[in-house]
């Protein structure tokens, strides 16, 4: 495949590997980064190079999203791999990890293979499957982790369902670790969270919603951390969401346990009050927490305690959302709003831009062993070019995802993707200003 070389000049480069945030230029050839310069202009370019003047726009590695649900296979009207890939490209996301709680569940190497073949045919962004940790995500028997890993799954998880049986969790961690497979787990006590659709507190109490205390997350996280200590295995804590579990995480990291944690952009942006008058687009798993928890989470991203930011993209069609709050399907789409929401955290002065980019590119790349996420010579040319200041009113109806359940609908954000490249190919180009 020959693609015309592209040179970006006058860009604001952010390289999460070196921490560089400043002017620069970049040449892409043969699908990889051929040259990265801290000078805004390049000399001696050959004639066949397409030159793009970034005019000060942000040029950084494309985002890598470790937590994306689609409806394929099984619920294609929600979202297909293709529609998710198109949404990702439009959002500057160049790699997505699709979650295994599909129908059938990705708990078999054949389904891993199916996803990878479909992704190859779509030829947009990189699509990597996560495998189920246990068969059917039921939390009982272990799934074929080794075979799925050979087939190409990048980590294992039971997605939203906590693995309740501590013995299963212990064996899973030990077994997966021996094979070099990362285990992700969302910590939630199944009894304290049973039937809950909001976080316990004054607001949920007034709304009359069944609610769960934050302790449900802390309790399960403490168990998981104890099992990490017991087994020595790596663990990816999926969507940590509140101040108390962050303290547990901090202690574990201080002791040197091999733990990584993700936070969803939703929990970094919204709090429990966004539920408002029973807005089901803000019904999430874990439920939105209070403002103090949100601020603690942002602080943890800034300090590096939380390693990775995910979109937690979870498409749900209108008929699953236009229901009373306790009956509605939880989750919100997020691929197309991830970048502007990250940039909004930067514009609010809460987290430095380079740190945010790091948490959405290099950190997830390292977690699952990808070569992407850096601007080094020879690295894959998975890039995004964005105007970080462009004001934007999010209108869910204009989003590409097949489902329109965006928690950001009606929100004003800043930042617009101008161009997305995957392996040096332009997979998205924003409308001309």
């Amino acid at each position: 495949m020959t693609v015309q070389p592209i040179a970006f000049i006058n860009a604001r480069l952010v390289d999460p590997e070196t921490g560089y945030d400043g002017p620069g230029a970049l040449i892409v050839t043969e699908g990889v980064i051929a040259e990265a310069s801290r000078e805004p202009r390049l000399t001696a370019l050959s004639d066949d190079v397409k030159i793009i003047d970034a005019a000060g726009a942000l040029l950084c590695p494309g985002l890598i999203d470790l937590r994306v649900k689609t409806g394929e296979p099984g619920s294609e009207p929600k979202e297909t791999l293709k529609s998710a890939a198109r949404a990702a490209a439009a959002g500057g996301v160049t790699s997505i990890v699709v979650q295994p709680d599909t129908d059938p569940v990705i708990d078999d190497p054949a389904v891993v293979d199916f996803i990878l073949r479909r992704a190859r045919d779509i030829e947009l962004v990189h699509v990597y499957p996560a495998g189920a940790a246990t068969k059917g995500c039921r939390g009982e028997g272990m799934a074929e982790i080794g075979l799925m890993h050979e087939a190409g799954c990048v980590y294992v998880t039971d997605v939203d369902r906590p693995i309740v049986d501590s013995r299963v969790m212990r064996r899973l961690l030990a077994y997966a670790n021996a094979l070099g497979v990362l285990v992700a787990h969302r910590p939630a006590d199944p009894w304290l969270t049973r039937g809950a659709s909001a976080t316990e507190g004054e607001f949920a109490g007034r709304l009359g919603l069944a609610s769960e205390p934050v302790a449900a997350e802390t309790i399960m996280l403490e168990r998981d951390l104890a099992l990490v200590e017991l087994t020595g295995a790596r663990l990816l804590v999926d969507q940590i969401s509140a101040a108390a579990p962050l303290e547990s995480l901090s202690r574990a990291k201080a002791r040197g346990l091999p733990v990584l944690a993700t936070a969803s952009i939703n929990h970094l942006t919204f709090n429990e009050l966004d539920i408002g008058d029973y807005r089901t687009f803000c019904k999430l798993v874990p439920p939105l927490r209070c403002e103090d928890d949100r601020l603690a989470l942002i602080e943890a991203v800034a300090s590096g305690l939380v390693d990775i930011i995910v979109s937690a993209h979870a498409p749900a069609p209108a008929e699953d959302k236009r229901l009373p709050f306790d009956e509605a399907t939880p989750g919100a789409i997020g691929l197309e709003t991830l970048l502007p929401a990250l940039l909004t955290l930067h514009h609010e002065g809460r987290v430095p831009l380079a740190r945010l980019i790091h948490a959405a590119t290099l950190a997830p790349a390292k977690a699952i062993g990808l070569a992407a996420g850096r601007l080094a010579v020879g690295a894959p040319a998975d890039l995004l070019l964005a105007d970080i200041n462009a004001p934007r009113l999010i209108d869910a109806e204009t989003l590409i995802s097949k489902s329109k359940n965006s928690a950001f609908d009606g929100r004003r954000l800043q930042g617009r993707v101008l161009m997305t490249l995957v392996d040096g190919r332009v997979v998205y180009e924003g409308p001309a200003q």
Partner: protein
Amino acid sequence: MTIAVPASDALRKPAFPFPARHFLSVADLDPVTVGALLDLADEFVALNRQKSKKLDLLKGRTLINLFFEASTRTQSSFELAGKRLGADVVNMSPRASSISKGETLIDTAVTLNAMQPDILVVRHGSSGAASLLSQKVSCSVVNAGDGQHEHPSQALLDALSLRRAFGRVGGLTVAICGDVLHSRVARSNVGLLTLLGANVRVVGPPTLMPADVARWGVEVHHDLKTGIAGADVVMMLRLQLERMQGALVPSMREYFRLWGLDREKLALAAPGVRVMHPGPMNRGVEIDSDVADDAGVSLIQDQVEMGVAARMAILATLAARLDNQ
């Protein structure tokens, strides 16, 4: 053939504009609106005690009672209120068996809306259901109970009962006792009674209290004796018997011993104390029959009577707004 009784001008044209198209939550009300609703309800109480009780304020209007949860008391109260005001009343109790409950709610709302009703009275087991439904229909929606959220007509009838018994609501000390956590009656009453200036206490075991309930602007007590000490009004809540299963309370007899109302405990309240209960009662669980049936103390039968009048006031006010459109 029914002959409408001559109604006073106050009844014919409620003298104030209702601020909202729907009656969903006490949070939408203000003291002036509540005062006007109570004044109107007072007139309906007088009317309801006459031999001929029928008015034509809702003549030609269609009222649909849409009860997803079984109810005898509230449904018949709304039905009588509608009929006494001259509306055509249809009762519907969709069963949730054939299709999922959510589909039933929206599908039913759209279907009923196409039949051009004027007022939809809805009860549903999910918090926020009445609000959701109000966004999908073009008629007025009255919340007759949504999950554990609100039961605003109950709060209005309780305020009416109190105002008639004490001459005022402001300044009264009202102890709401029992399962506050699961009670929409408690939520609506806390909202409305505090709005009207009453001092509200909530009393019950911590397992039956919502988180951060102290921030609702109420006093919180876990001991019934201190909770009702000096109270002018003791409002007992119904304890669903399935609460025994979820480790919320150990047994009925322990609950009655610690949080049930009997004569002995009631003696701690203020002289002239009145006892309320939204019904239906679990005698011997949250309240002793001896107290419940004592007409000198209990307002429970008054509450039922006031229920019809309060709901007539709500319906008449919403209808007056429709007439002005």
